[in-house]
C-alpha cells in the first residue's frame, strides 16, 4: 500500500483544531519504533483545551505507544511532544513534578495497586501532591469514586471488583488531583455495551462540566463516534497518520480505503 496516498485526509500534517481552543498538547514530527521496526513516522497534531481527542486505528498500529510518548514514558526516535508547553520526556525535578500534576492517566488494565482499597488508591496522589489532612483526603477521594459511580465500592480491593469497575476506579484515581488533561488508554475495551456507554457518558459530562481535556486511545467504533470531538487515525501498513478530523465526518466521507474499512467494519 502506498503510505503517502493513504494520507489523503491529513492535509499539511497538523490536524485542524478549532481556533477558539488553545492547544494544550502539540506533537511535531514524531516518529517511533522499536529496534528496526518502525511504528509510525512524522506524526503531527494539536489537542485543544476541553476537547475529547481520540487516537484510533487497528491493533498494533501504535496507539498506546503514542499515548506513552505523550506522557513521557517513551522518547520518540524523532520529533517532540509538548504538554502545556513542557516536554515530559526531558523535564526533571520540580518542573516535571508540576507537569505531572497537570495530567492523569487511566491505564488499559486499570493499574490499581492490589494491596490497597479503591479509596486508598484514589487517596495516594492526594497524599503525594497535596497537604490535605487525612480525613479531607478521604472526603475528596469518596467524591471522585462517587463521580464514577463507585461510592459503594470504596472499601473493596481491586481483586474484588469487575473489569469495568477497575477501569472506572482507574479514572477516579486519574482524576484525583482534578488535572486539566486526562489520558485514557482503551477505556471501553472488554466492557459490556451498557457499562461502555456509561463510561462514554461520563467522559462527555466531565469534559463539559469540568472543562477537562481528554486524550482517548481506542478502537471501539461506538465510543469514537459517541465521545470524539476530533480524532487522528494511525495505520500499521502506512506507518503513520492517515486521517484526521471529526470522526462522524470521517465515517460519512472517508478520505481513503483504510478509513472507510475501519468505520464500516469491512475486511476489504
Amino acid at each position, binding site marked *: 500500500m502506498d503510505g503517502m496516498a493513504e494520507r489523503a485526509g491529513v492535509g499539511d500534517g497538523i490536524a485542524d483544531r478549532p481556533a477558539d481552543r488553545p492547544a494544550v498538547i502539540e506533537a511535531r514530527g514524531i516518529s517511533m519504533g522499536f529496534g528496526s521496526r518502525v511504528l509510525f513516522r512524522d506524526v503531527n497534531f494539536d489537542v485543544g483545551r476541553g476537547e475529547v481527542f481520540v487516537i484510533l486505528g487497528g491493533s498494533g498500529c501504535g496507539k498506546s505507544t503514542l499515548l506513552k510518548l505523550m506522557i513521557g514514558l517513551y522518547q520518540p526516535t524523532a520529533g517532540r511532544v509538548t504538554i502545556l508547553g513542557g516536554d515530559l520526556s526531558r523535564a526533571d525535578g520540580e518542573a516535571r513534578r508540576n507537569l505531572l500534576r497537570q495530567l492523569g492517566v487511566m491505564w488499559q488494565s486499570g493499574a490499581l495497586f492490589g494491596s490497597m482499597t479503591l479509596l486508598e488508591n484514589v487517596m495516594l496522589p492526594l497524599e503525594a501532591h497535596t497537604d490535605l489532612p487525612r480525613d479531607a483526603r478521604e472526603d475528596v477521594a469518596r467524591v471522585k469514586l*462517587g463521580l464514577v459511580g463507585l461510592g459503594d465500592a470504596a472499601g473493596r480491593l481491586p481483586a474484588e471488583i469487575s473489569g469495568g469497575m477497575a477501569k472506572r476506579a482507574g479514572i477516579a484515581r486519574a482524576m484525583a488531583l482534578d488535572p486539566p488533561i486526562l489520558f485514557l488508554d482503551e477505556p471501553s475495551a472488554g466492557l459490556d455495551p451498557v457499562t461502555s456507554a456509561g463510561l462514554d457518558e461520563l467522559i462527555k459530562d466531565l469534559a*463539559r*462540566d469540568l472543562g477537562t481535556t481528554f486524550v482517548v486511545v481506542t478502537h471501539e467504533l461506538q465510543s469514537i463516534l459517541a465521545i470524539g470531538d476530533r480524532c487522528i487515525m494511525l495505520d500499521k501498513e502506512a506507518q503513520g497518520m492517515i486521517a484526521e478530523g471529526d470522526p462522524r465526518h470521517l465515517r460519512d466521507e472517508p478520505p481513503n480505503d483504510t478509513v472507510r474499512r475501519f468505520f464500516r467494519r469491512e475486511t476489504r
Partner: protein
Amino acid sequence: MSGREPALPGREGREAIGEGAGDRRPGPAGERVSTPGSPALPPAEDMGAGPVPDAAPAPGAAMDAPAPARGGKGGAEVRREGDALRLSGRLTSLTAGAAWRPAMKGARGARRIDLSGLETLDTSGAALVLAAAGVAGRDVPVEGASRPVAAVLERSRGASGRPAAAQAGPRMGPVRGVGEWGVGLWNAALDGMAFLGEAAATVVNAARRPRDLRVADLLRHLDEAGTRAFGLVALLGVLIGVILAFQSAIPMQQYGADIFVPRLVGISLLRELGPLLAGVILAGRTGSAFAAELGTMTVNEEVSALRIMGIDPMVLLVLPRMLAATIAMPVLALLMDLAGLVGMSIVMIGRGFPLQLVLNQLHIGVALGDLLGGLGKAAVFGLVIAGIGCRAGLAAGSGPRAVGDAATAAVVGGIVALVLLDGIFAVLFYRLGW
C-alpha cells in the same frame, strides 16, 4: 469479580445543570445562583443562560497557568463574615489543603455559605464546600455560586450523596550476536550502577526526611523477610551444625583432636557460614519474592502509574524492602549461629563430651569480634540481596514470563553477589587483622 456493578451516577441531577450548559464552556462568572443545601439546584433556565465569553474562568483553566502556591497568591481565601462563611479565589486540589481546616472551623455555627467570590472550583474544592456545609448543618444554604462553580458543586454533591505469537527478530550473524551480547552486558552493568546510585540517593533523602518512609510497609517486609523465616533458619542451622560437627569429629578423632570440634564449628559458623547460609536463605526466599512482587507490579503498569503520579518507586517500593532486609539479616544470621551451635552440641554430647566442656571450648576459641564481624557482614548481605531483588523486579519486561525471569535473576544475582562480597570481606578482615 463481582457480578453486578453499581451504575454510573444518574443524570437526574445533571439535567438541571446540563440543559443550559450544553456547550463546553461554562457560563460567565457574573451569573450568580443560590445553591440551597438540598440536593437539587434550580434548573438551568432559572439561572439564566447567556453568551459565553472566551475569557470566562473555566474549572479546567488551571491548565494554562503554573500551579498556584498552596494557600498563597492565586489560592483560596476563607473568611467568616458575621453569620456567613465566605469562600473566594481558586478552590482546587492544590489550594484545598491549606483552606480545609480554616473552612471547617469557620463553618461551625455559620448560617450560610457564600461562594460569590469563588472564581474556580474543581471536585476537590467541591468536597471542601460540601464538608463545610455538612459541618454547618443540613439546612444551611450554599449561595452565590457562579454557573460553572454551581455545575461542579452539583455534580460533586450527586457523587458524595451516594452511599458512601512474538514477531521473529532479524537473523543475527555470530559476530553481530556477540556484539549484541556485549552491548547488552554493558548496558546491564550501567543500569545496575544507575540503580545503585538511585538507591544511595534514596537512602540519604530518607535519612533527611524520615517521614517519607512508610512504616507500615517496613513492618510488613520485616515480618516477611524476618520472622516468617525463623523456623526455616533454625531448622537448617541445627542440621548444618550437626553435619559440620560429624564431618570434623571423625577425622580429628584419629589425632585425638576431636575436643577442638566446638572451636572449629564455632568460628566457622560465626565468621562465615552463619551469615553466608542466612544470606542464601534470604536470596532464595525473600530476594525472589521481592523480584516477583515488583515484577508483577511492573508488568501491570503499576510502577509506571506511580512514576506518572510523581511518586518515586524507589521511595515507596524499594526503600522499605532494602531497609527491612538490612535489619532482618543480622537477626537471621544470629539465629543460624545459635541453631548451628545447638546442633554441634548435640553431636558432641552424643559422642560423650559433657556440655560444660563444649561450652568451655567455645568460650576459649570464639571471640566477640567473630560474632560482630559476622553480623556486620550479614547486614551488608541483606542490603545487597534486597537491592538486587528489587532491581530485578523493576527491570522486568512485559508478560507473565517477565516475572519468572525477574525472580531467577534475583536469586542468581543475589547468591553470586553474596559469595563475591564474602570474599571481599575475608580479604578486608585479614588486612584489618580481625
